[in-house]
């Protein structure tokens, strides 16, 4: 399952502060879209508005529309919990639940919602999700050990397995490799390439080579100065953004001549 996301005229506020201004973007189904840009330009903030996670921060609000296959996430009466069960998220730092085993971490989305699941179904789901996250072979003999005992890269893949176990339509990744070494990063990037066969993937990254390697389309965000809102500067095919960008500031950023 995979759905497209259409964002129109989106403004994101923290209280009175306008953090991201006037974003219009279409994220295709079954593709990888990368968000790049300098720190503080609103990439992560924008990403979190795509599954209503930014509301967790007091005072945060949104104006505009985000359509998931035509359904507005911000329409009246939409339950953010329903939204989040369809749009999963992987965070910057691996955050497996410390009180749960590897198996329970994968089943967290099911178990925390107290949905009933037979043991054989649960076993199948655990194996399928861990294989989907390229982690099965490394942990299949210690599924009942705590998830916090894994290495950082394994923990991050466990978090991805946990996210895909609830079978979302879209997976958002907020700098998923920034806390990982190059080998674990490679494992995650390979995984992203496989995930796009089934899911719409959106990834925020500071690593431009990574954006070039994994994404089909790239969006460049920039900020005019401190206290000013972040804006979407350019959105195009990844090859275009890196080889033939339309904007001067995009070219400066991707070629390292920023500022």
């Amino acid at each position, binding site marked *: 399952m995979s759905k497209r996301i259409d964002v129109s005229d989106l403004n994101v506020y923290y209280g009175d502060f306008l953090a991201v201004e006037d974003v219009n973007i279409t994220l295709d189904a079954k593709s990888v879209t990368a968000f790049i840009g300098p720190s503080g330009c609103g990439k992560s903030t924008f990403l979190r508005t795509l*599954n209503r*996670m930014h509301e*967790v921060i*007091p005072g945060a609000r949104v104006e505009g529309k985000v359509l998931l296959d035509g359904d507005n996430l911000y329409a009246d009466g939409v339950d953010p*919990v*329903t939204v*989040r*069960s*369809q749009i*999963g*998220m992987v*965070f910057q*730092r691996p*955050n497996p*639940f*410390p*009180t749960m085993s590897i198996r329970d971490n994968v089943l*967290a*989305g099911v*178990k*925390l*919602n*107290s949905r009933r699941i037979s043991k054989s179904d649960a076993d199948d789901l655990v194996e399928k999700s861990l294989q989907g996250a390229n982690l099965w072979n490394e942990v299949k003999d210690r599924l009942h*050990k*705590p*998830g*916090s*005992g894994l290495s950082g890269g394994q923990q991050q893949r466990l*978090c991805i397995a*946990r*996210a895909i176990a*609830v079978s979302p339509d879209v997976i958002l990744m907020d700098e998923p490799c920034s806390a990982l070494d190059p080998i674990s990063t490679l494992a995650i990037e390979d995984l992203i390439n496989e995930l796009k066969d089934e899911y719409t993937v959106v990834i925020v990254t500071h690593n431009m080579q990574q954006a070039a390697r994994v994404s089909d389309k790239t969006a460049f965000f920039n900020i005019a100065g401190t206290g000013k809102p972040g804006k979407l500067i350019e959105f195009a095919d990844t090859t275009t953004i890196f080889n033939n960008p339309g904007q001067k500031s995009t070219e400066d950023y991707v070629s390292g001549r920023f500022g």
Partner: protein
Amino acid sequence: MATLMTERKRSALTRGRLPKYTPYAIAASAVIVAAALMALVGFNVFGWAVLSAVLFAVGNVGSSAIVEGRRKATDKLATSLVVGAFLLALLPLISVIWTVLVNGVPGLVTPGFLGSSMNGVTGAVDNASVKNGTPVLGGVYHALVGSVLITFWATLISVPVGLLAAIYLVEYSAGNKFSKVITFLVDVMTGIPSIVAGLFAAAFFAMILGPGTKTGFVAAVALSVLMIPVVVRSSEEMLKIVPNELREAAYALGVRKWRTIMKVVIPTAISGIASGVTLAIARVIGETAPLLVTAGFATTINTNVFAGWMSSLPTFIYTQIMTPTSPSNPDPSTQRAWAAALLLIILVMLLNLGARLVARIFAPKTGR
């Protein structure tokens, strides 16, 4: 060609340092000098120890100041002050434990002390046991039962109220005015004198059930007034240190807020919460004043907290000391009081050990 440098006999790097044996030499001479000085004014062990320590500190710092310089001397002065303060703080603790042990053990090992109540133990019985030299009769069973029951009910009231208040403060209030008021009131409640809590409970139940209502449950209410702020405070701190990432991880999986709190936040913090509760129990189990005005005194076993007066360990100790069973022979009562005090200390110690055990059992496993 490079030649090997030989190690110099007297290193230039250790110049101006006192030899290693200096502190021992100073300690020995301090002890001797102190003994001599004490002999002049009248010898006692305590004064001798204090004087030796002071002389040792002065000698150590002084010699260091002369030979080693200002920095080393300051270091030794600070060390002396820190160690001195530590010993000073430890002294009353050791003294209390020693006194209670010495006075309490004979009573505690008396047969029947733990298994019998004071029912039927009158002044005549005490007089007889003193005259005939037979073991002291009567025991602490009724007080032990009372203490356990009252504390159990106080915990039953305090833990849900305290934990839910802490959950509101950390998870739902988002730092609004109301939560600031609650936090302030909880802080004020922490400082309430325990007798005031007792009077509150007594007055409250006098109002709804009629004057003179003294039962174990009234005492439990009084204790819970003292216990709730402790539970709120410790649970609040424990919930606060649960990383926000875990809450976000649960939300991102489409888990509702209350389920996230029940199944992620509380399990992660449960070891701290449980040990906080245990320490709160340890704090109220020794309360005397509120129990005097709410549960009354009893000499018989009462296992019903909702009817009749109830004894407890602290009030048992108080009554045995203040109004001995046999006014002409207070020794048996004194012995029982000390034994009960020892029992109470042992209970509190077990609770503290229990808190550590609980924290270790519930702590998230690392799996390494």
